[in-house]
Structure formats: C-alpha cells, structure tokens
C-alpha cells in the first residue's frame, strides 16, 4: 500500500530523513514514535506529499509521488490526513467542512455528500454539531470533526500526525476511541503519536525514529517488552517513566 525506499530529505544542510525504508501493507496499523525532531512528522507528511523528498522513492497505492500534480492530487484524495492543530476551515460550518471535498473533488451530488457527512458525524458521535462553526466546538469535538472530514473522502489510508497532542487530557480519550473504532474496521493507518496505550491496543507495528532514521520497527509487544537499541530504551524510559 505504502512503500518508502531509500528516502532522504534535507532542509538546507540539515538532513531531516536518512535512508528511510518502510513498507506498509493494506489494513496494517503502524504507530510511529520517537523524540521530537526525530523526523516522524516529516516522514508521514511525505506520504501525501505535503513534504517533498529529494532522493529515494515514495509509492502509494501503486502510484509514485513525483512533481506531477495530477498524480499528487489523486493520491491526496485517497489518503486522509488528521493534523495536530485540527485545521478545520473556520469560515465554514461543520457540515460544509465535511462536504466541500466530496462535492468538488469527488463530484458527489450535494445531497448525497450531506447524507454521507451526517453519517460520519454520527460515527464520531457529534451529529448535533453539524450546523455550528468549528470555533464553537471544543478541541476534542474539532478533532473528531477533522477525522470525519477525512473519512468523507472514503480514503484508503489514514494518516494521523500527533492527533491528540494539542488536546486537553480529558478530551484525548474521545478522540482515541474514534481512532480505535476505525482501526477495528480494518482501515490502513499510520499514526504519529506518544499515546503508548493506543500503540499497544491497535498497532501491528511500532516504528521508532531518532535523528531522521528508523531505529527499530517491531510489533508492540516485542518493542515495549524488549527494545533492542539503547536509544529506544532511553526514549521508553522517559515517556513511560512518569
């Protein structure tokens, strides 16, 4: 489903990603973790080309990501993304946020798009907020709307870039519950997060990154019980220590 082969990326002189090789199968759930600045957000953003790599190959759903705009837009409509800071469109209502892309990218009739939007709002437990503006919702509600917005495009892959990091603690669970639900339905997911409980519950594989490299990749049981490298041990002790 997703193939990263020998991918390198630099910001000026700073090498953000070093020789990344990662292959994600259909239906697989991968959690990416690591200290801040380790390149995990950059890596996930390569998958829908919000970041551009300088060497190597990124292939999503059989299409290689290049400068060709059409193929990039095609991939983006198949890959849903949820951001740390929600990035809902503040000038549109929740319902308009959810129907805009299906109508204008998928050319779905408006009525159908609205029915679908209401259905996904139901799944993330906030159908009653459809006609409000994002600014009127709590952080947890906004992030659930953002997930529903991505799902309305019926994506084949969902990317989550630290979806709970900007949330108050009491709102984290409601968002994670939605994500767990999604994982159970068999969605292919790549998730950058520090929620190790979530990783234990849903991940097929945990990818640990540090300084732009993939240091370890293993099933969660293995990774948490017996990390192979010192860097992973140090990271786990810091994150689980408190």
């Amino acid at each position, binding site marked *: 489903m997703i193939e990263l082969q020998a991918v390198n990326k630099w910001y000026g002189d700073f090498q953000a990603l070093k020789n990344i090789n990662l292959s994600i199968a259909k239906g697989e759930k991968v959690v990416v973790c690591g200290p801040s600045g380790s390149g995990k957000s950059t890596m996930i953003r390569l998958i*829908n080309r*919000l970041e551009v790599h300088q060497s190597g190959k990124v292939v999503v759903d059989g299409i290689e990501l290049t400068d060709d*705009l059409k193929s990039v*837009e*095609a991939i*983006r*409509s*198949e*890959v*849903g*993304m949820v*951001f740390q*800071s*929600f*990035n*809902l*469109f*503040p*000038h549109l209502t929740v319902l308009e946020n959810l129907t*805009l*892309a299906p109508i*204008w*990218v998928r050319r779905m009739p408006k009525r159908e798009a609205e029915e679908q939007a209401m259905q996904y709002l139901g799944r993330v437990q906030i159908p009653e907020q459809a006609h*409000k*503006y*994002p*600014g*009127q*919702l*709590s*952080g947890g509600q*906004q992030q659930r709307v953002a997930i529903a*917005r*991505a799902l309305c*495009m019926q994506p084949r892959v969902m990317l989550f870039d630290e979806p709970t*990091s*900007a*949330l*108050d603690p009491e*709102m984290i669970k409601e968002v994670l519950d939605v994500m767990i639900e999604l994982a159970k339905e068999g969605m292919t997911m790549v998730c950058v997060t520090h929620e190790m409980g979530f990783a234990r519950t849903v991940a097929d594989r945990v990818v640990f990154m540090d300084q732009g490299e993939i240091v370890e990749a293993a099933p969660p049981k293995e990774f948490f019980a017996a990390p192979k490298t010192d860097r992973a041990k140090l990271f786990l002790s810091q994150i689980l220590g408190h």
Partner: protein
Amino acid sequence: MSLSRGAIGWSRENLFSGWGNTLVTLLIIWLAWKLALPFFDWAITKAIWVDPDAQACRAAKGVGACWALITEKHRLILFGTYPFEAQWRPALAVLVLVALYIISALRACWRPWLALAWVAGLGAIGVLMWGGVFGLVYVENERWGGLALTLLLATFGIAFAFPLSILLALGRRSEMPIIRWLSVGYIELIRGVPLISLLFMASVMLPLFLPEGLTVDKLLRAQIAMILFAAAYLAEVVRGGLQAIPRGQYEAAQALGLSYWKSMGFIILPQALRISIPPLVNVFIGFFKDTSLVLIIGLFDLLTTVKVSITEPKWTGYGVEAYLFASAVYFVFCFSMSRYSQALEVSLASSAARTPVKEAG
C-alpha cells in the same frame, strides 16, 4: 437618578475635573462658538439659494454663501457637457449604479444572480450613456462628464482592478519563479510611479506606439491606466491577507485533494479577503478620490465640472461654494463606504465565533 444629573456628573468628571481641564474645555467651547456660529450664519441663514442673474450673490459677497451657483449649474456639475435635453440618461445611469451598490451591500443578495444583475445593470448603463439604439441619440464619450463619469471610472476601475489584484497577489506567492517575478515586477513598477504620470503616458505616449489607424479613445485609456494602478495597490493588501492565513489551512486543503484554484477559491481567499476588509476599503476610498486626477488629461469628472462651473464671468469668485459642494458629494460616497465596511466587519464577526480555536495544551 435622572438623565440630566448623569450628564452633569459625566461632564464634571470628564470636562471640569481640575482647573487645567476646565480651562481647556472653556477654550474649546469658545472657539467652537466663534467658528461654528459665523459658518452657520454664512452657510444657512444669510445664504442665497436662488439667483439666476447673480445680482443678489454679488451683494451678499462675503456675508452669505452663494448656493445659487449650485442651483444654476447643477446640471453642468453633475453631467458635464452631456447634451442638455438628454441628461435624464446619465441621471438614470447614476441611479442604476447607486441601486447596484445598494443591492451589493445587502448580504441577503449575495447570490449568483447578483453577478447577472451587474452585467444587466452595466449593459443598461452603456445603452443609456452611449445611446444610438432604441431611438436614443448617440453621444460619444468625450461628452460624458460630472458625477456620472466619476462614478463610472471608480466602479469600472474597482470592478476590474480587484480581480486583477487577486491574481497578482497569488502570483507574487506562486512557487513558479517566472510568475512570481512578473507579479513582483509589475507591482513594484506601478507602485513606483505616480498615477499622474501613468495617466499622461496613457493619454500622450500610448497613441504614439499604436499602429497607424488604430485608436483607443481617451476615456478607455484613462480607465485602463487607473485599473493598472489600483490593481498594484490592492494586490499588496490582498497579499497581506493571504499571509495572515495559517499554513495549516493550506495543508488541510491540499490534503483533501483540492486543486490549487479550488483551495484558493473555497478556503484561502474567503478568509484572507475577510480580514483584509479595512485596508481594502481604505484603498477603494483613495481610488475613488484619485479618479479626480483625470482632469489633467482633459476628462470632465466631477471636480473638473465644478471647476468649469465657476469660469463663467458672472459666477467667478464663488470657488468656496463650488468646492464645498464637490467635497460634500465625495464625502457622501466615501463615508458610506467607510460605514458599510465597519458594519460588514461587525456582521461577519458576529455571525459566529469563527476564529480558529487552538486548545491550550
């Protein structure tokens, strides 16, 4: 508590708190009395309103205002040298324009049909002004003038400059170097030149470069120069708005697979233009007043017709009245724009709590 008690209390607190404040307050009241009263006397009580042969005005010179000048010359001032018996046509055209302004200002009318209304309205104005069909006598645009000309220059100027400025602002932020350089070059070049010199170039130099036999009339050349000028200024205002939109909005639009134009049109521009309303209106108002500069290339806009109205010997010497009148007309339009933009800001802001809320972590 009675109201008057409150007013006294308020003024005691704000105007007469201490001898310094009291002194300033009294001084201002005295000055206002000294200035406003004579002006009122001159402009209203001792003014001459109707006086076809300018005799009474001569007698009242220096004592009362000669508004009779406006009464006598209002047709010239409002419509310039447009054929006298056909001046109902520019009058109607002005009314159509004002009607278009008003329906455009009502949010309930912000529907696709508004664009059609503008096309139909401008078409009707063209027919009215030029004539030549439906039994209307043809009037070449050299004879257009006064308020009608000013409003047409300003309306067409903004109507074309605004979309152009959006393209320029997007171009300046484009990832394609050629488009970016062209936009920057255009904006910097036009901004670096006074409008007067652009108008001169359009009226004097441009015909020299056009091939023999091809002429573009003076009004159109002036209009194009004004559009090009206004677009450069507006582009920078729009760019300011674009820069204020968080990067996450661009990314979210991209991540949904929206193409560049769709993400600009649906996501970025609606937000960017909304926050740009105050500076946009600022430029619109400046531009409206700048249309008066066309007098230097011999077009009869409102200010020029006012000037012409006091050239007839019996009416010379009433420049104050004439220019006060012109100022009043300009003020009505500019002040309406200003008030409207304030009202629009408030209504857009209050229709919902629309600011993106970032949860504190």
